[in-house]
């Protein structure tokens, strides 16, 4: 189990962190949730049934949801999953102003998605999981996950219609 966990963590650390951060909106709390989930998994004496990576994502998601229920680190300033929020000053001198505006729009659109849709988008786009893995991680039917993802993309497209 340890070796398996080590491999999954190495491959998916960014995805796991982004998922936890998208739920908790606080980087420290997100790291705590990952630590807690890995600690729980380390105590298992057998390998999980099904896809191991999906199992780890499920464990991290559960830990993050638990933390959120407990109200850990009540968010004063909700943190974003993206690196450094953009501002008009962030644009590189040679980068057209439009680019940072576009990025800002995209980021805001993702952050404004409903919780469940955002989690599916994060797992699909940023953690590169398959729909089967996401369905297992969320313990929901494949069709539900797939249609939720499509609805999330539709919403994003509506908000970003000038870009795509």
């Amino acid at each position, binding site marked *: 189990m340890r070796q398996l*966990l080590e491999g999954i963590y190495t491959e998916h*650390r960014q995805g796991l962190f*982004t998922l936890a951060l998208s739920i908790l909106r606080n*980087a420290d709390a997100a790291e705590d949730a990952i630590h807690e989930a890995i600690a729980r998994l380390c*105590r298992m004496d057998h390998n999980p049934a099904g896809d191991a990576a999906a199992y780890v994502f499920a464990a991290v998601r559960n830990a993050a949801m638990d933390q959120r229920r407990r109200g850990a680190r009540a968010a004063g300033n909700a943190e974003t999953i*993206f690196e450094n929020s953009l501002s008009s000053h962030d644009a590189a001198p040679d980068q057209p102003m439009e680019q940072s505006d576009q990025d800002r729009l*995209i980021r805001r659109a993702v952050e404004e998605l409903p919780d469940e849709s955002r989690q599916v*988008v994060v797992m699909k786009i940023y953690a590169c999981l398959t729909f089967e893995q996401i369905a297992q991680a969320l313990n929901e039917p494949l069709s539900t996950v797939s249609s939720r993802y499509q609805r999330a*993309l539709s919403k994003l497209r509506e908000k970003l219609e000038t870009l*795509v």
Partner: protein
Amino acid sequence: MSTDLETLLKRQPLRAPSRSLDRSVERLLAQPPAAQTDWRWRVFGWSVGVAMAASLIIAGSMAFAPLTTPVTSTSPVAQRPAPAPSQGGLASATESDRPIEIEEVWSELVPGEMAEIGGQAMRSYELQQVQHKRWVDPKNNVQIEMTVPVSTTLLTSLIID
């Protein structure tokens, strides 16, 4: 269309986890399984151990008062069946004429050493008692006293995580 949107989304750089998370996960993965007991269980284990020791001490001190305050019980000695009153009967013995038994017990619970017995952590307690019994028969002016020192060793298991 979807692909364009997905490409746009993927292009956004994500906030990265800190190195301290990697280090803490590395430590978790390197720890032996026994050391990974949830801290809540460790606290629970200690609490149970402390509660058991405390309840033993309280029970001991309630049953046997400390040496400075002996427990005294006074009871009339069991009476032999009273003889059938004779005709024109005389007055029977009064309550104050009955022989009485007075018992005093001093005790102290002394915590001893911790030891490992059969792989189980144990703590010994020595219960030291002095029992003093006195029988008094005021009618016949007879008094009998008996003093018995008793030492008992008690063992209690400790839960150590």
